[in-house]
C-alpha cells in the first residue's frame, strides 16, 4: 500500500457522533448494575445523577470511553466509572477533596453542548428542554471532560444536564458556596502547623516591621472598618502621615516592605485623574510627602494603570491563551501545534508577564540601587499593586522564597491586602464581565518564571505553584473567597451557625493537609533548594527569619540619583525639598525603562550569583516561557513517557534522602545533640521509589496513567506545517549538477 503522509493528514476532524449505537453498548454492559455513589465530603449533598454516561477518553481520536454514572452535588460534578480502576488507589499524589473525575463546581470554566454535531457554548439562558448529545466541560485547571448523554434515559439526561448547567453557570449568592456547608473537621495537626503568618492581628504586622526594620506606623483604627471597608483591618503607613480620619475616603500609602537601607515600598489606591483636580493633587502631594519622609526625603511614584495592561486586557489575553491548552482531540492538537509560537504570541499573555516582571525590576532598581522610597498606585490599589509589590519582595527578600515566607507574602499582600478574589475569579458566575481577571494567576505565572530561571533560590517547587493555582477554584477554603477583609468578616459572622458566639471557621488553603497527605506534600518542596549555610547557633535563632543583608549594591543613598530630567512638577514647595519623581515619566524618555533596567540587570548578572540575595529575572524573548506543567499536564500528546523534569527530580530527591539519612545517622551518633535543632519539616524524599521513574511521565504528579501502552505519539498533519513555497524545496537535492552561484 502506498500511503502519502500528506494525504493521511487531511483526514477530517472526528465527528462528535459515537460510532457505536446504544443498543450495542447495552448488550455488552448489561448485567452488573450496582449503584455506585460518590464518597461525599462532610456537608456535601447529592443533587442529581444519571447512568449510564459515557466519558470519552481523551487519548485518541476514536470515540471510545468509559461508562459510568455522572453526579452533581453541591461541591462538584463527579463521574464514577462502572469499572473499578486500580490506579486511583496507587497514586502517590492524590487530592483528598477531589479526584481525577471530579470537577469542583467553581472550577468549571465553560460548558459546551453538542447539538446535531454543532458545538454550542451553554449559557444560563440556553438551558431549555433540549439537552445536547454530548456535553463538554472546560475546567479552570485546564482539564477537558467530554460526556455522552445519549445512552441514559431522556429525563435523567435532561436532569443532569440542567442540574450541572444550573449549578455551574447560573449566578448565585455567596451563601451557596460549598465552603459554608463544608464541615470537615480540621485535622489536629492543622493548628498553626505551617506557621504561615496570616496578618490578621496587630502582632503579625509588628513582627513583620521588626523583621524588615521598618520605621512606620501600625494603624489599628480600622479594626471595625470605620476608616474604610476596602482597607485591611490592620495596616501600616508612613509615620509622617497625620490624622487618618481627615483623609477618609481617599487612599493611604500602605506600607509593603522595607529595604535594609531604610527606604520602603508603599502602595495606594488612587482614582484616575481626569482633570487637574486641585484636591486630588493636594492629596497626592501629602501622600508623597509622607512616603518621602520615610527615608532621606526621596520618593518615586508610579501609576501602574498608566504603564501596565488593564485588568480587562489581562482577562482577554488569558482567555485567548488558555484556549491553546483546552484540547479536545488529537487532530486539534496537531493542527494547533503548527502555529504554536505565533498563536502564543498573539495572545500576548507572555508579554504581559514580561511587562509585570519588567515593572517589578524597575521598582527593585529604585529600592536597591537608588535607595529611594517608592509609591505605586492604581485605581483600586489591590490588583496590579499586589502583583508588583509581591514580585518586588520576592526578588529582594530571600525569606519570601521559602514556602512559609511565600505563603505569608500571599496573605500579606493579597488576602489581608484586600485583593477582590471573589470578583476577579468570578466564583459566583456574575454576568458583569468587567471585574473578572486572573490577576492572582498572573502573579503566580511571574513567580514561576523566577522559579524556573533560578530554581535553587526557591524552597517551593513548581508543583506547589500549580497546586496553589488550582486551589483558588476549590470552594472549601476561605482564603480566596472574599473581596476584602471587611467582606470576609461580615460574611463569616452572618453565616456562622452560632451567630452570637464565634464566627464560622473555614480551613485556610495553607492547611495543605486538607487536600494532601504528608507524602504528597513533599512534592511542594524543591529538592534543588540551596539552603542557607547557617551555624548551629544561628539555627536556633533563625526560627524567625531575619532580613538578609548581604549582596546589596553599593549604597548610593547620599548621592543624588544620577538620572536627570524626569521631575514631575508636583508642587513648587515639594520640588524644592524632595526629589520626588514619577516613575512613569521615564516612559518616552530617550532611555526607556527597558534600557535602563537592562544596565541594572547586566551589572547584577556580572556578579556571582547568590541565591540568598537579590534575584532578577532575565526578560529576553527566549527566557520567558510557558508554564509547561500547569498548561500541558492534561494533554496526553505531550506527555513524555519516562522523561521530563521528574526524571531529574527523582534522582535529586533520592540523593537528597541519602544525604539526609547519612546526616541523621551522624546526629544519632552524637548524643550531645539530643535536642533536635532542625525545625523545618523533615522531607522524606524517598517516597518515589526510583525504579519507577523510568515509567513516570513528564506530567507527573498530575496526569493519571491511562493504561496507555508504552507507545509513541505519532503526529498527524505534518505536511500542513511546512508549506515551503520558495523554489528551494523543488531544487535538486544534490547540488553538484546545480550551477554554482559564484
Amino acid at each position: 500500500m502506498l500511503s502519502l503522509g500528506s494525504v493521511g493528514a487531511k483526514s477530517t476532524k472526528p465527528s462528535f457522533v459515537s460510532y457505536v449505537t446504544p443498543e450495542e453498548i447495552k448488550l455488552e454492559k448489561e448485567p452488573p448494575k450496582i449503584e455506585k455513589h460518590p464518597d461525599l465530603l462532610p456537608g456535601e449533598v447529592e443533587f442529581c445523577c444519571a447512568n449510564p454516561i459515557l466519558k470519552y477518553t481523551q487519548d485518541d481520536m476514536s470515540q471510545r470511553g468509559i461508562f459510568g454514572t455522572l453526579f452533581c452535588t453541591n461541591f462538584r460534578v463527579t463521574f464514577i466509572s462502572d469499572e473499578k480502576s486500580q490506579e486511583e488507589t496507587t497514586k502517590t499524589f492524590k487530592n483528598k477533596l477531589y479526584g481525577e473525575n471530579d470537577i469542583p463546581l467553581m472550577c468549571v470554566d465553560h460548558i459546551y453542548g453538542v447539538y446535531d454535531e454543532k458545538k454550542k457554548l451553554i449559557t444560563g439562558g440556553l438551558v431549555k428542554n433540549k439537552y445536547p448529545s454530548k456535553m463538554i466541560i472546560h475546567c479552570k485547571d485546564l482539564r477537558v471532560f467530554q460526556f455522552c448523554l445519549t445512552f441514559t434515559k431522556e429525563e435523567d439526561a435532561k436532569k443532569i444536564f440542567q442540574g450541572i448547567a444550573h449549578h455551574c453557570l447560573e449566578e448565585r449568592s455567596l451563601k451557596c458556596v460549598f465552603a459554608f456547608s463544608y464541615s470537615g473537621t480540621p485535622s489536629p495537626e492543622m493548628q498553626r502547623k505551617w506557621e504561615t503568618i496570616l496578618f490578621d492581628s496587630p502582632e503579625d504586622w509588628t513582627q513583620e516591621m521588626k523583621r524588615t526594620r521598618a520605621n512606620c506606623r501600625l494603624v489599628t483604627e480600622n479594626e471595625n472598618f470605620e476608616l474604610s471597608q476596602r482597607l485591611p483591618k490592620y495596616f501600616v503607613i508612613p509615620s509622617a502621615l497625620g490624622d487618618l480620619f481627615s483623609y477618609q475616603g481617599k487612599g493611604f500609602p500602605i506600607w509593603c516592605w522595607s529595604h535594609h537601607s531604610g527606604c520602603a515600598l508603599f502602595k495606594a489606591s488612587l482614582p484616575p485623574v481626569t482633570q487637574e483636580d486641585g484636591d486630588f493633587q493636594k492629596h497626592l502631594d501629602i501622600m508623597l510627602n509622607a512616603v518621602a519622609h520615610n527615608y532621606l526625603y526621596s520618593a518615586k511614584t508610579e501609576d501602574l494603570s498608566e504603564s501596565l495592561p488593564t485588568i480587562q486586557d489581562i482577562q482577554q489575553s488569558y482567555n485567548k491563551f488558555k484556549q491553546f491548552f483546552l484540547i479536545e482531540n488529537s487532530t486539534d492538537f496537531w493542527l494547533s501545534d503548527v502555529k504554536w509560537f505565533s498563536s502564543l504570541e498573539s495572545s500576548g499573555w507572555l508579554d504581559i508577564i514580561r511587562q509585570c516582571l519588567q515593572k517589578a525590576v524597575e521598582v527593585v532598581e529604585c529600592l536597591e540601587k537608588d535607595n529611594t522610597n517608592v509609591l505605586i498606585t492604581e485605581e483600586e490599589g489591590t490588583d496590579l499593586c499586589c502583583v508588583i509589590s509581591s514580585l518586588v519582595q520576592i526578588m529582594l527578600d530571600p525569606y519570601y522564597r521559602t514556602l512559609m515566607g511565600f505563603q505569608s507574602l500571599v496573605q500579606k499582600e493579597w488576602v489581608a491586602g484586600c485583593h477582590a478574589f471573589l470578583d476577579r475569579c468570578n466564583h459566583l458566575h456574575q454576568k458583569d464581565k468587567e471585574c473578572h481577571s486572573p490577576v492572582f494567576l498572573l502573579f503566580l505565572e511571574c513567580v514561576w518564571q523566577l522559579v524556573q530561571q533560578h530554581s535553587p533560590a526557591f524552597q517551593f517547587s513548581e508543583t506547589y505553584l500549580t497546586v496553589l493555582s488550582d486551589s483558588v477554584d476549590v470552594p472549601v477554603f476561605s482564603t480566596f473567597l472574599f473581596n476584602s477583609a471587611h467582606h470576609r468578616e461580615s460574611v463569616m459572622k452572618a453565616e456562622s451557625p452560632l451567630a452570637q458566639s464565634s464566627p464560622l471557621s473555614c480551613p485556610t488553603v495553607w492547611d495543605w493537609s486538607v487536600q494532601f497527605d504528608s507524602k504528597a506534600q513533599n512534592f511542594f518542596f524543591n529538592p534543588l533548594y540551596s539552603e542557607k549555610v547557617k551555624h548551629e547557633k544561628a539555627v536556633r535563632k533563625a526560627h524567625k527569619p531575619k532580613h538578609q543583608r548581604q549582596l546589596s549594591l553599593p549604597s548610593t543613598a547620599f548621592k543624588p540619583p544620577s538620572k536627570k530630567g524626569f521631575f514631575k512638577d508636583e508642587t513648587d514647595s515639594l520640588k524644592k525639598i524632595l526629589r520626588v519623581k514619577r516613575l512613569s515619566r521615564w516612559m518616552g524618555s530617550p532611555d526607556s525603562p527597558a534600557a535602563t533596567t537592562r544596565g541594572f540587570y547586566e551589572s547584577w548578572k556580572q556578579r556571582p550569583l547568590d541565591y540568598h540575595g537579590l534575584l532578577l529575572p532575565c526578560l529576553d524573548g527566549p527566557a520567558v516561557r510557558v508554564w509547561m506543567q500547569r498548561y500541558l499536564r492534561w494533554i496526553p500528546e505531550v506527555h513524555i513517557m519516562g522523561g521530563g523534569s521528574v526524571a531529574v527530580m527523582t534522582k535529586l530527591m533520592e540523593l537528597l534522602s541519602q544525604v539526609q539519612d547519612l546526616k541523621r545517622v551522624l546526629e544519632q551518633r552524637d548524643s550531645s545533640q539530643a535536642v533536635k535543632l532542625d525545625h523545618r519539616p523533615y522531607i522524606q524524599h524517598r517516597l518515589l521509589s526510583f525504579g519507577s521513574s523510568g515509567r513516570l511521565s513528564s506530567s507527573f504528579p498530575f496526569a493519571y496513567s491511562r493504561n496507555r501502552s508504552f507507545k509513541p505519539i505519532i503526529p498527524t498533519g505534518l505536511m500542513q506545517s511546512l508549506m515551503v513555497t520558495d523554489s528551494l524545496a523543488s531544487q535538486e537535492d544534490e547540488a553538484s549538477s546545480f550551477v554554482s552561484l559564484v
Partner: protein
Amino acid sequence: MEKSGSVDSVESLVKAGQSKRYYSVNVSVELGTSLSSCALISCSSVCRSTKTPVKANFLFCQRNWFRIPVFVVLYYIDFCTSSILMVLKYVFIVCVSTAKDVTYICPFVGPVRGSLTVTNYRLFFRCTDREPVFGLDLPLGVLSRVEKIGAATSRGDVSYGLACKDMRNLRFVHKEPEDSLKKSVFEVLMKFAFPVSNNMSLFAFEYKQVFPENGWRVYDPLAEYKRQGLPKESWRISKVNDHYELCDSYPAALVVPVTITDEELRRISSFRAKGRIPVLSWIHPESQAAVVRASQPMVGQNGRRCKEDEKLLQAIMDANAQSHKIFIFDARPSVNAAANKMKGGGYESEDAYQNAELVFLDIHNIHVMRESQRKLKEVVYPNIEDSHWLSNLESTHWLEHIKLILAGALRIADKVESGKTSVVVHCSDGWDRTPQLTSLALIMLDSHYRTIRGFQILLEKEWLSFGHRFQQRVGHGDKNHTDADRSPIFLQFIDCVWQMTRQFPAAFEFNEYFLITILDQLYSCLFGTFLCNSEQQRLKEEVPKHTVSLWSFVNSQLEEFVNPLYVHYPSHVLFPTVGIRHLQLWVTYYIRWNPRMRPQEPVHQRYKELLAKRAELQKRVEELQREAANRTASSSSERAGSPTRSITPVQTFV
C-alpha cells in the same frame, strides 16, 4: 613545525584581573635561535602569588629580536579545559599577523579597542581598554566569509566583517598599516581561514597533540556488528566493497542478507543512486527487525525495475520472522520523490515490491534547511526582538524541521520496536536525511548509543563511514561561502539529539557540553574526524595517520562530558514527544554569544554538589562507625563505668 623556545622566568605578576580567568603577567623570554619574531609560545608555570599551577598559557611576542618583552595571558585551570588551550600547551603555532589598535564592534557592549592576532589556526582579539578583560578567541575554521565592508575611509580605517558558521558575525575596524611590507590582517585571514582554496593543508594536519587514547580506534565495524548480535544464519558481512569499487561513498564492510550474493549486490548497485545499496544498519536484539539504509532506486519515468533489488528487500523481510511486511521510509516529501523520477530517480512502486509499504516523511532538502538556518541566524544574532520573538522564531521554520526529522525517526523506531517490522530508510542519495533518521532512530532504540562511546560509534558509523559529505556540507577551509552544497544537516541532527536529552535528562551519558564540543570541533578543523566526504577519501588522504581524532581528545577527559544524572537502563526505548510545544530552541548553542542569555547555574551543578556532600558524609559515617567500634571494644573492657562519655561533636549543617 619549529621548536619552541623556553621561557625562563615569569618575572612578576603585574595585575590580577577582575575576572577569575585572566591574569596578566609580564615576562622576559630568552628565545631559541630558530624562533621568528612574532610568535605564540606555550608554557606551563605556576602563578606565584596564589601558587596555582597554570596549565596552559601563551605569550604574545612583540616585534623584537631575542630578549622579547611579551605579554602573557595565564589561564586558570578551569579554563584550561577548553580544547584550544590544551592544544597550545604542546603545539607551536605560528603567529602570522598582529594588528594593534583594532576596534571590535561588539553588538552587545559596543566598540572595544584592542589588539588582533591571527595565527595559522586561530584569531585572537584582546581588548586593552576594558575591565573586566574581554577577549575573542576562535579557530579560523569557523569563518565562512571574510569581507571588507565599504571602502577605506579618509582616515585610513578599514572595516571588515567575518561571518561565522557558529551563528555569529564579527566586525573589526582598524587603520591600514603604513608599513606596506607587513601583510594586512585581512590578507592573512583570507589566506589562513581558507587553506583549501589556497592549496594549503588544513590545520588538522599540522596539529600533533598526543593524547593517551587513540580516537581513531573507537569504531571497529566488525566489533559493532558483533555487539548488535548479528545472527549469522540470516546476515553476513560482505567484502564486496573492500576497495570501494561497488560504492565509493560506502564503508568497506557491508552487512547484507546471506541469501544475496556479491554478484547480485553489484547489479543492485547500478539500480540505486550512487551505488548506495540497501545494507543493514542495526538489528533488534530480540525481534531481529532490522534498520536498513539505502539511496533512492533509479526507477525513472519508465518505471525501471531491478529483480535483484526486489529480491534483496524480500530477503531483508524474510530475515525477520516476526513480520510479513516491510516498511520503506522515504524521507522526502512525496512531491519531491515524484519529481526525482524525471531525473531517473524515484521511489519503490508497490507493484514491484510486494509486502512493502512506502511512507513519505516529508523532510525537506538541504537547500530548504540552509535557508532556514540563515533565517534563524538573522533572528537570534545579534539582537533578539523580544516582542516578536515567537513569531520570528516560527518564521524560520527551524523547529518545524526539527520536529519533522524527530517525527520521522520516531515512526521508524515505532515500527521496529512496537511493530517488530524491518524498515528501509532512504532519501535521494542516502547521505543527508537518511543518516539523520537512522541515527536518531538508533538512539531511541538502543541505549548503547546514548553513552559517550556509543555515541561516538554511532557518528563514526552512520555519518562518517556511510559517507555524509562533511567536506561539502561544512565547506572546511573553502572560501566559496555561497556554495549550494553547504547545509546544516549534521547540526540539525545534533539539535535533535539535544531535544531528546532535554526530554530525557537522565537517559544520556553525555551532557550538553559534549554536543557543543562536537559542533565546535566540526568547524574548527583541529581534528581529522570530520574531514573529507567519505571513508575512502579519508583513507586516501591518510587522515587517520596525519591527524588527531576528536575522540582522542574527548576520551582523554571524559569527566568533562559526563552527565551526572545519567542512569543506565539497558533495554530502554525512548519515544520522545515531537510536538512543537515540547521543542525548544537550543538557546545555549544558538544564542550563546549573547551575554544576557548565558545560563547561571545548571541543575547538574547542584547535583554534583550533592554527590560530593554524600561522599563526604559517607566518609564521616564510616569514620564514626570505626571510632564507635573501637570505643565499644575499649569500654567493654573498662566495664562501663564512666557515664560522661565524650563523643566528638559533629557539625551537621549543609
